[in-house]
């Protein structure tokens, strides 16, 4: 071997022991473009006799590749070592640095989920104002005037005289939006309607004078009670799990007929009966029914040709049920400790 190459080979063996500064210096000393020993040697090859040139050249090139690899390895090893040094001697059980995290309200979370399920069934969202006329809130929806059905909704009225559509009130349900959507006239309609509603109710553990509703409406030719059942049963299984049992029982809402309540098997006892479901094994989740022909007619839609179904539910109830929240007022406290639990 060329004596200079032999010397360099010895230096190559020492590369894995070099420190960071030494490594840098050695890199320059060996492979530096201007004054590197190996670089110089490679440049001087031209002066050697041809037979030497071949042998030494091959060896020198191999050595250069080895140096490059060794420098690279050592550099990576030193970097890893430096990284490890920051961890050495530190109490790794100490807590990490936090950031303030935001969260969606539990009622929003339920609305999001409900919306997503119905979006998959072709429904889009619609909204409407919170102050409505008696006509839109009650009469257009087939509530009989001067009838106890009105007492089902304890209504908060706004001041002012009755206009052509009756007195102004705070909507007691999101159903007036059904009328607004249907009056636009474009069919078929498949909407869900989230919104704030008002009742003249005390503010206690299980009542609030203001709460949220999400309502749905589908109107087209050929829609039947079978579609209602299928859609809502699908919804219940999507929201509560595929093993959820569903039952529909007759009920009364002035704006639907036939009307029904949908119960799902109790999530707590699985249907065997417990305190939460008053021993029945069922939990009431939503009211629904076929849109009453009078409602369609009031919206300028021919009830002989078109049929539809509607449903409505309370996200607060679902949130309380789902998260085990005992008092509805907690949803309206703005308590940071509470709000951070659900997102």
């Amino acid at each position, binding site marked *: 071997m060329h004596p200079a190459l032999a010397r360099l080979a010895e230096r190559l063996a020492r590369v894995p022991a070099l420190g960071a500064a030494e490594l840098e210096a050695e890199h320059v000393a060996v492979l530096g473009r201007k004054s590197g020993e190996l670089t110089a040697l490679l440049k001087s090859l031209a002066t050697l006799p041809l037979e030497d040139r071949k042998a030494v050249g091959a060896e020198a090139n191999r050595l250069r590749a080895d140096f490059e690899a060794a420098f690279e390895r050592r550099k990576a090893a030193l970097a890893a070592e430096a990284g490890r040094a920051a961890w050495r001697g530190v109490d790794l059980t100490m807590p990490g640095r936090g950031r303030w995290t935001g969260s969606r309200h539990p009622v*929003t979370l339920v609305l999001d989920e409900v919306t997503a399920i119905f979006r998959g069934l072709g429904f889009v969202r619609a909204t409407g104002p919170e*102050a409505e006329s008696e006509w839109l809130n009650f009469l257009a929806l087939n509530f009989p005037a001067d009838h106890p059905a009105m007492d089902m909704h304890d209504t908060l009225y706004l001041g002012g005289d009755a206009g052509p559509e009756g007195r102004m009130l705070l909507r007691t349900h999101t159903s007036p939006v059904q009328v607004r959507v249907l009056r636009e006239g474009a069919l078929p*309609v498949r909407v869900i309607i989230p919104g704030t509603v008002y009742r003249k109710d005390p503010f206690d553990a299980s009542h609030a004078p203001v709460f949220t509703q999400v309502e749905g409406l589908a109107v087209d030719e050929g829609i039947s009670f079978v579609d209602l059942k299928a859609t809502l049963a699908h919804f219940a299984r999507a929201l509560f799990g595929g093993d959820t049992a569903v039952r529909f029982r007759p009920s009364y809402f002035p704006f639907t007929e036939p009307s029904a309540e949908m119960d799902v098997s109790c999530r707590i006892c699985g249907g065997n009966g417990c305190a939460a479901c008053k021993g029945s094994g069922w939990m009431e989740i939503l009211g629904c029914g076929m849109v009453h022909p009078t409602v369609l007619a009031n919206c300028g839609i021919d009830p002989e040709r078109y049929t539809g179904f509607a449903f409505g539910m309370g996200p607060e109830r679902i949130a309380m049920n789902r998260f085990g929240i005992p008092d509805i007022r907690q949803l309206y406290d703005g308590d940071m400790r509470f709000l951070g639990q659900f997102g």
Partner: protein
Amino acid sequence: MNLSRRWLEAFLRRPLDPQETAARLAMLGAPVDAIEPVAAELRAVVVGMVEDVRPHPNADRLRLCLVNDGGPERRHVVCGAANVQAGVRYPFARVGTTLPGGLVLERRKIRGEVSEGMLCSARELGLGDDHEGILPLDTDAPPGTPLTRVLAVDDDRFVVDVTPNRPDLLCHKGVARELAAATGDALRLPELPGAPELPLGSPRREGAEARVDGVRVAIEDPETCPRFTAAVLRGVKVGPSPAWLRRRLEAVGQRSINNVVDATNWVLLELNRPMHAFDLARLAGPELVVRRARPGESIVTLDGQRRALDPAMAVVADARGAQAVGGVMGGQESEVGEATTDIFLECAWWLPARIRATRRALGLATEASYRFERGVDPTNGAEAVRRCAELVLATGGGEVREEIIDLWPQPTHPPRIFLRPARVARVLGVEVPWPRIEEYLVRLGCTVVFKPEDGRMAVDVPGWRPDLREEVDLVEEVARLHGYGSLPDELRPFRVGERRDDPAEVADDRIRDGLVAQGLREARMLPLVAAGAGDVSVHNPLSADHAALRRDLVGGLARAVEHNWSAHVRDVRLFEIGTAFAPGTDDRPREDRRVAGVLTGTREPAHWTDAGPAPDADLWVLRGVFEAAVALAQPGATVQVATDASDRWVAVRLDGSRAGWAGPVAADRPPWAAPLYGFEVAIDPAPRGPVSYQPLPDTPAVERDLALVLPDGVLAAQVVAALRRGAGRLLEAIEIVDEYRGAGLPPGGRSVAFRLRFRAAGRTLRDAEVDPAVQRSLAAVREEVPGVSLRAT
């Protein structure tokens, strides 16, 4: 509505399982909220057979009895009743039993003799007032049998939730009918113990006026009272009701008054026909006339209140004046009392709307008004009067000398509805064969005539179903009896419309996501607040705290911050998306969709590696969040310094109008809390324009820092604007990186460091291009913002 299981069983002539009955009623649309055992406190009392009676050695009036209570041991019982006899069965309460009065029986010595329980009187068991001794039981039941079974007082009270469209379910007959319709059972009126067969012919149909047994009866207001049935009972003895009658009433939670009042209540609970009994001797005329109240007329009702009447109300009046508020409550003057012997029984049909208005005007809701408002059966008045008369006669004797009269000046036919089986299929989604439809409707009491020639059924609905008025009402009945559960629920193809998500909802979602990313938690606060001047007020608030609609959202969030502070939570970061209200130009208030936020406490959670306490969020944190909120809620609006307040930023739309603000928020702040900041921005629901891709730079940027001394009064924004104008096209961005105040600067001045970033597309910038741009920027500043100079380095 409370229902007695035994009463229902009496209609159906078969036993009912409480749970099964409740489940069936739920599936028929009348959910049972509760099943309450009746006489539960008697369930521990058993039949005791007295096998031996001996005198008490130390007391003349006491006896020593040996009682067989079904157990292996005989019980020694000291008894004070004179009527105790060996070989007779009595109610026996063992040691440990709690009696209805709350007495817990203990083993104790009475005059030196051990007593292990008690033989009970009817009164001690709450079964009557008779305390003339212990209650001998007329039974062969073996000792130890529960007393409730022997006395048939075991019952269950169903608390049924009846919807307002189904007045027929407000009585036992109606619910029994519903159960019978579901199963196809027969239905018969229960027998009354000791009731005589009334020797009466059919009711006497009359017009607007008639006489019955010497009493003149007239309808002067047939619109309010189209039908009025009545009978006169003479020689009645008014007194306590027998046990069977009392027990039934008590089973559904009704207090027994006397046999006549109880008889009317019985009929109300059995047939849903409110009735009224007048003391005939106290009626002037004697006559009863249905008419409107006269101006200034008043009446003392049965509850002892004097009530002013007005002509919008109907009364039943004698020759002197009102004796009852029609359909609501009777009057005290002609109330049946112990001295009453002759009774005028009345059962009328009242116009629901009139009853509702009267009930509201008088603030007087009664069992009667509740039922009339919902609509009672106009066809069974005579049945009700007859039933009531039988009950009175069975419990108080007397006689009915003349037929029941039925005043019905304008007879009407039962409503007829046409039902198309094809429509049933269309609404329900399955074919129900027409014989099935017919069967269901007949079971409900309808009369059905099928007309194959036009494919319709003519259906006459029974009087007890005022809710059945049109075809779809019958479709629901078919579905109900067919069973909602037996309809299929396969998902069938559907069409989707052209409609898109409401942009307001899309905007809400976007803003919510953005503020959650800012580390804010979403709150929902009540939009109802205490009323202030200029607020949209609620006409009939439930409380003064909820008397108006909120005019902003920050106010509610500030209260939430106080709530958190009261729980010693110092770091509060909340936002809300909701509606704020303002008076509108007409009756409809203006509704503004807004987003608001509040923040107080440390900028970020404290960490142990920080030197010193974590800094609190300051106005710059607020500005950052506000800018984010404005970008989310009002794209295109800019954040500017308010011109009318020194501590506010405002969001300004392109047209110059304000869309929001940010600044300090007033609150009741404890000394340890950090300053509170808040913002509120109106939401522009307009859909956002399309976002288009910006190519990534492929050349390096050149940055130049300029430290400029700004004299007092000069704003950074002015300098930035000038720098930007001067720099030209190559300038990409200006960033403010530092501010310095203090030594080496003129008084009131400050040094602000601006970082200018230059870039040219497609080539690397050279100093020869950047330097002149910087010089032009400086020149623009010198020209446009006098007093600004380069800071000497």
